[in-house]
């Protein structure tokens, strides 16, 4: 009887279409097979407008249609409108969006509102749980779940890295003079004091041809750098018991004063630099160090330089001269990022789920992160170890190793209810900092604004969300 029961059970399991392992299929193949029953339908996906959208428009969307017969409509939305559009669609019940790209720090708000579909049941039904373990821990542990349930698949290895000019750092004369002046080797800075000393030294020696460093300084970018630096210097955003903001602590002041002081050895007008200004100056050799997301590393190496979509990226003058390192103090901000989710307003939920499983799977995601024209960055262990990726340019191996190290220990963005209001307050504060306002006064105002948002959301409600966030491994060092 026991043997019969066992055989019956295993036979049923083998017949069950979702048991991928029984058929020896990977998650991508399982998703394709299961999705074929939806052939002829159309699903829509919200994607960040611009380069990011070229992935589903030119590559993954057409490929999915060829494999399954499901057409993919890509709804391009500027980043700052994505949250609003998703919420509007959900609130109206229109169901215009099936699958979503969600910035992980929005997840608590979207889940609380009921806009995101929990994915656990499908993950099990379509055999995806094992492949999720391949996603780098920083993303998997921090950007996938809310209250223990899966609401999104981390799909972009956003992490801010330090890029530096190897040729300048290896110059014997520079090395000798630097060591004589500061008593340690000229190498990627281990802390912000070293960063300031190295930056000033290079500016003194090479400006105006090359300045020590350059950063993007206009909204919204610097607030991610502030979040990282503030925590790495020992700062806490809130008192966990009272939820009173503590950003105006001596640590906050130290970070703000450091940020302002650094502008002095950066090129004139750095306070107005955006993403492209900073990129252009680094690629043209005007700055010796910068901090940014992984695409800088690819473009600096000249990867994708023949692509029409990247024609706006200045031709790299520094290919082969760029080194990759973790940011000073050694834990890098997982700034922004994207996770793939399913909208609760969708009329094609399962088809949408299968599409995001296929996109996010080991097999398809490896293809997507190698697309030279899109902005998806490696986020899986298998990406970091990919022999294929490591051959893309001479230093690609070092690039992947650095991203892996950064991804293993990355700090996640603050993620609370109505997070956009805290983000806006930080952005405004940093903008005031560049205008020369007193750092302590700005921080005191920032703390007041944080407290006002917390009061409005409800202290107890926000405290519970903060505690859950702060308990995550990537929240505080």
């Amino acid at each position, binding site marked *: 009887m026991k043997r019969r029961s066992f055989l019956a059970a295993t036979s049923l399991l083998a017949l069950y279409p979702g048991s991928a392992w029984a058929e020896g299929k990977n998650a991508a193949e399982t998703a394709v097979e299961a999705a074929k029953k939806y052939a002829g339908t159309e699903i829509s996906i919200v994607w960040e407008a611009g380069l990011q959208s070229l992935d589903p428009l030119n590559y993954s969307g057409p490929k999915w249609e060829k494999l399954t017969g499901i057409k993919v409509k890509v709804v391009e939305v500027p980043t700052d409108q994505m949250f*609003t559009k998703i919420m509007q669609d959900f609130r109206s019940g229109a169901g215009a969006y099936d699958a979503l790209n969600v910035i992980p720090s929005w997840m608590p708000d979207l889940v609380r509102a009921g806009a995101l579909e929990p994915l656990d049941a499908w993950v099990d039904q379509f055999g995806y749980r094992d492949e999720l373990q391949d996603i780098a821990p920083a993303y998997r542990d921090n950007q996938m779940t809310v209250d223990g349930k899966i609401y999104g698949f981390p799909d972009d290895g956003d992490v801010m890295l330090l890029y530096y000019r190897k040729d300048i750092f290896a110059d014997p004369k520079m090395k000798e003079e630097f060591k004589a002046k500061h008593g340690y080797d000229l190498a990627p800075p281990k802390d912000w004091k070293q960063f300031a000393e190295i930056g000033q030294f290079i500016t003194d020696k090479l400006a105006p041809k090359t300045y020590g460093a350059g950063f993007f300084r206009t909204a919204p970018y610097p607030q991610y750098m502030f979040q990282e630096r503030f925590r790495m210097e020992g700062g806490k955003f809130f008192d966990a018991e009272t939820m009173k903001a503590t950003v105006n602590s001596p640590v906050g002041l130290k970070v703000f004063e450091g940020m302002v002081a650094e502008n002095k050895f950066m090129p004139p007008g750095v306070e107005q630099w955006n993403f492209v200004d900073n990129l252009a100056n680094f690629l043209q050799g005007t700055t010796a160090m910068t901090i940014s997301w992984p695409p800088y590393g690819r473009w600096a190496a000249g990867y994708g330089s023949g692509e029409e979509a990247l024609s706006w990226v200045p031709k790299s003058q520094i290919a082969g001269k760029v080194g990759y390192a973790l940011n000073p103090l050694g834990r890098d901000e997982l700034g922004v990022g994207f996770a793939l989710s399913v909208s609760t307003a969708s009329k094609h939920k399962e088809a949408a789920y299968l599409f995001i499983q296929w996109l996010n799977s080991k097999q398809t995601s490896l293809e997507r992160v190698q697309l030279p024209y899109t902005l998806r960055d490696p986020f899986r262990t298998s990406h970091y170890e990919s022999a294929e990726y490591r051959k893309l340019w001479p230093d690609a191996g070092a690039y992947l190793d650095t991203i892996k190290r950064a991804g293993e220990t990355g700090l996640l963005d603050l993620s609370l209810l109505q997070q956009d209001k805290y983000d806006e307050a930080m952005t405004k504060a940093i903008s005031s900092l560049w205008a020369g306002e007193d750092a302590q006064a700005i921080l005191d105002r920032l703390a007041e604004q944080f407290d006002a948002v917390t009061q409005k959301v409800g202290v107890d409600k926000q405290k519970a969300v903060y505690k859950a966030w702060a308990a995550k491994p990537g929240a505080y060092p």
Partner: protein
Amino acid sequence: MNTRPALAQRISVASDRGFKYLMIAPAILILLLVGIFPLVYSLVVSFQNITMTEVDTSFAGALNYVQLFKDSRLWESLLHTALITMVALPLELVFGFLLAQLFLERFPGRQIFVALLVLPTVISPIVAGATWRLMFDVRFGPIGQILSFFAGEPVNILWTVNPSFVYPAIVVCEVWQWTPFMFLLLLAALSNVDQSQLEAAEIDGASYWRVLRQIVIPAITPVIAVAVLIRGLDLVRIFDIIWALTEGGPGSMTETISLYAYVIGFVQFDTSYTAAVAFLVIVILTAIVTIALRRMEMVR
């Protein structure tokens, strides 16, 4: 015996009057729906607590109106709006008047110059703001290069970041774009000043300033009043130029009431609070317009 015809007449009159109202009723209904309903609806919303993530529509009392008084950013934005209006409006008026005086004389190519002068007004304000942002750019902007040329050394003014320069930058852009509007109105007004009065004053030996003060300005005052009212209201609503130039920065230093309402309404989606802010603005604008109209009535 006489009561019946009188009654019939009264019924007939009442029926005529009713018919009149019946005829205009659809128009009034549409006006009410289009004009009044959104206003009433906004008022209702302002007493609720609707946000993007919160759809609780229960009555929240005067919560949002109490919040108005505690919101320092709101009052600062009103102050910024008033500051820009009080500086830009007189400048536009004075420059517009001077240009109009200049173009009263007939000279070769006058019409071409007038057409060129009017060009900034036909440009979208967001484009004007973006253009001036490039003009003020510290690396590529011609303004910095010209200043550097005269100074004989690099002049790196961060026009949209430095608190000392950010308001002048906004006012320059605003005045550049809207002075031609004043110019056109005032040119038309000046062209219609009674020539016989001007000639009589000239014969009597009146000075230029006396003619200006006692004949020209009184003659064009109604036009000036209308132009100031139109531009004043536009300046209170100023959005595009500032959005393109500074996005309200540095910090919230150049955030006007329209920018603030946009941020809380369409970025943060504090729907009910935005409705309360909108009502505050309506009250302020109504007061200003009423006072302005009374003054204009006095002028007439």
